[in-house]
């Protein structure tokens, strides 16, 4: 029996792997750009300043408009695949295929009982489930906890041999190689999917275009009111999964996947060589790669409930990892821009640039612009006036007064749509949360350079809440 190669993507398609974070030509291009800007700043500082602020402000306006466009698209009836009780009831259990579930675990002993309970609540024939708990060989604690639980036959333990990188995508690749189901889904340790999610996914795959490789479920939290951080986190997630991603889905374009509850057709996923073991946001990367290969992703109207990180320190680390992964994804897929354009097409490439690159650049620029805005309001700092020609000033004012309000309002809408009515007012207080996001983004940028593959594990079990 051949041993599956969990690093197949890095070995066979290195140009699509984050194994090497920066390619030489990217480093050279970036260095030349920085050098050119520094020279311009030295020779003509005012022009350099104007150029920088003009580009940044135009970019803000573009991103704000794009996000509002996604919100507008999210209300379309074809934004998500929806199935009612009658559709599910019409499914015959005999017709249901074998479904593989991969659950990568590392030091999750305390989450294991709840995880097992929530998986057993799934409304799917037990004999048609192929549940793999992916455990690191040296994670004795979790292995012993799994052994103590009387897990049904549909569960099996897949041991991941110790090797670098020690990442979730690597474990998932091993699980993928051993998966037996026609369809496959990834869940995290603390996940509590809605019981009918697998059946909805089966219906989704059967009724959609055969080129749909992935169905993304919505994610939300079962502890939204634990503290201020979880409230803001819920508002953000609600806006992202209930508004922005459905908007992308309606456009049939590239979609950065959420980290869990992605349902796949198993065999085509294997042809894509699974996940990139070196990318700490392997989900985002896979979403782009499958689009490059001509596959599609759609949103599925079902929810998986997770635990919102309620500790600020862990939250920062988790978010740092996500943004680092997004940076890795952006760098990987822009290595060969001509090829990217050819494979994605101009339209999808545009969406990719805005949704992945745009988000990152916004987060990195925000602290600078917030500081300048605060200075202007408090001290009427007129030294900045030469850098903001009239058009740029008007764009900036629009982004400040209209764009920011629109984002807060979108967060409130997401909460309402998610029926977290009491969180609507908290969504309007998001700006401090955005500051935390920017801190995480800068941290991610530093880590990308000094420690690109470091995986800061999120600690779970900080709440006693469970899914509704």
């Amino acid at each position, binding site marked *: 029996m051949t041993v599956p190669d969990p690093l197949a993507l890095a070995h066979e398609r290195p140009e699509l792997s984050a194994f090497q974070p920066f390619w030489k030509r990217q480093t050279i291009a970036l260095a030349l750009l920085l050098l050119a800007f520094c020279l311009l700043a030295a020779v003509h500082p005012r022009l350099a300043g104007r150029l920088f602020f003009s580009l940044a402000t135009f970019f803000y306006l573009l991103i704000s408009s794009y996000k509002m466009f996604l919100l507008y698209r999210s209300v379309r009836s074809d934004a998500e695949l929806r199935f009612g009780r009658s559709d599910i009831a019409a499914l015959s259990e005999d017709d249901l295929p074998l479904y593989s579930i991969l659950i990568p675990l590392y030091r999750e002993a305390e989450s294991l009982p709840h995880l097992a309970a929530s998986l057993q609540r799934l409304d799917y024939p037990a004999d048609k489930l192929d549940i793999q708990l992916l455990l690191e060989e040296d994670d004795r604690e979790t292995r012993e906890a799994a052994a103590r639980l009387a897990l049904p036959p549909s569960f099996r333990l897949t041991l991941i041999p110790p090797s670098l990188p020690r990442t979730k995508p690597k474990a998932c690749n091993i699980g993928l190689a051993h998966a037996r189901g026609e369809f496959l889904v990834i869940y995290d340790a603390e996940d509590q999917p809605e019981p009918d999610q697998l059946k909805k996914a089966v219906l989704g795959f059967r009724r959609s275009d055969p080129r749909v490789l992935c169905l993304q479920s919505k994610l939300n939290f079962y502890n939204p009111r634990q503290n201020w951080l979880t409230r803001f986190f819920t508002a953000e997630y609600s806006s992202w999964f209930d508004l922005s991603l459905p908007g992308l889905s309606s456009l049939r374009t590239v979609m950065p996947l959420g980290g869990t509850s992605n349902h796949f057709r198993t065999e085509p996923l294997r042809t894509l060589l699974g996940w990139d073991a070196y990318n700490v946001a392997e989900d985002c990367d896979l979403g782009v790669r499958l689009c490059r290969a001509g596959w599609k992703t759609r949103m599925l109207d079902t929810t998986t409930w997770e635990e919102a990180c309620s500790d600020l320190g862990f939250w920062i680390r988790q978010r740092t990892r996500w943004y680092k992964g997004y940076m890795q994804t952006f760098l990987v897929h822009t290595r060969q821009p001509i090829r990217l354009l050819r494979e994605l097409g101009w339209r999808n490439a545009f969406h990719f640039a805005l949704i992945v690159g745009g988000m990152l650049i916004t987060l990195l620029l925000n602290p600078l612009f917030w500081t300048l805005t605060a200075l202007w309001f408090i001290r009427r700092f007129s030294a900045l006036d030469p850098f903001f020609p009239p058009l740029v*000033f008007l764009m900036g004012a629009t982004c400040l007064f209209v764009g920011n309000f629109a984002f807060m309002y979108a967060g409130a809408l997401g909460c309402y749509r998610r*029926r977290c009515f009491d969180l*609507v007012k908290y969504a309007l207080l998001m700006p401090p949360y955005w500051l935390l996001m920017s801190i995480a983004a800068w941290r991610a940028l530093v880590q990308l350079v000094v420690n690109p593959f470091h995986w800061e594990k999120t600690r779970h079990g900080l709440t006693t809440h469970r899914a509704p």
Partner: protein
Amino acid sequence: MASQPIVLLKRLLLTASLATMVLAALVATDSIGAAPDTLTREALCWRMILQTTEGRQGLVSSLWFAPLPTLLRWPLVVLLPLPWTGLPSRLVSLVSALAALTVLWRVSTRWLPRAAASLLVLGTAAHPAVWTGALDGGDAATLSFLALLFAASAVRWVLEDRLTHLVLMALSAALLCLTRAEMILWTAAGLAFLTAHEWAAPRLPGQRAAILILGLLPWFYGVGLWVLGNWLIMGDALYFLRSLALLRPAGEALSTLSSDPFRHPLWGVPILFSLLLGLAALIRREGASFLPALMTPALLLVAALADAFGVLWDQAPFGLPALLLGMFALARSAALLPLRFRTPAALLAPFATLLLLILPAPPIPNGWSGLAPETTDERQAVLREIGAILPKGPYVRVFVCGYDAFALLDGVTDERFRHALDFDFAQAQQDYEGHHLFLLVPRPEGRAAMESIHWKFPGLFHAGFANTLYAGDWGRWRLFELIHHPREEL
């Protein structure tokens, strides 16, 4: 399913038809005079592009010159630098009118058979009031679109409880406040109605508060932005409201209207349709339809209130929205009819009759009170003649006050003339020490009566001040020479 070539052909035909209509409309604009504020707003846009103080002040400092219409024209003024044509404004009003008709179409087809809805919308589009509003570059079409969007969204929110409609209603309310100050009252009334509805509606815990936040917050934010703009630019958060101190009931009105707006037959049509809808809603006990039934009378009430205080200097911005809201009310009334009366044949006849009644009616007169805008030749003559009597030499400054100065001074390069939206005697003397200073003040009639120069220095135009010398009249403009810093100030 239609084949690809047929779909393409249909799209091509639709595009060609729309393009032809737009071209025809633009060609026809010559026969439709520009709305009075058109050139002033475009000149204001140029001042903003040039980043002048008056440009920034002009955007926010007057309750009677709301910011949104200027902002809508701004990008087009940048892209189409064609001064004195009014083309950017006409494009804005044309797009707004098309948007308004689109909203009317979409709500009508929900409640009426397509044939009847088509007749309703085409008939409305064919009316001279709609054509005038679409092509005159004024605010009537923008107001109509937003008012219709607000009404339609509000009704659909009450009927369907869909979040999209709540959001559209909230956003349109906010934008209406920034389009025309009087709409602050109108939207407040509409939102109050909806608030009352929410208090009575069965809701889940916390849902009512969430709905009210989502529904009302944009309105407060829109008005708050205007206040913030005044604080940032004028240094006084309530600067734009200070002209309200000049308001007096009708008998002491600062202006007299050239025509009585409420006798025009076209006002009666929307009121009639609103009454019809109100009756139908009462019979069918359908609360949602009371809102659109009340909206046209509410608009009339706001216009009457403005008239009572002598500030209804242009009626067309109320007439066109009233007409479109009336059509909306009519469509909604038809939806409340018993099913047996809702067949295409049964509905076509009354709509055809309606067309025969309203089409011959002329547009609601503009009724622009008192001071008609000057032509280009008149503007140049005023400046030339004033320039001729000024002392020779570069140490002369003429401060031209008011919003009408945007048009008067547009394109003028004579350094002696300075625009002053917020004139300060002491500051002027300090900045121009040793200069001969003059003040050019518009006659306090119509909207010009609300200018800051008149509420800061009441009676200036008719009686001057102790330190001003009358220097002559040119049309609506009166020139004063400033001798010393005047003692009387607000």
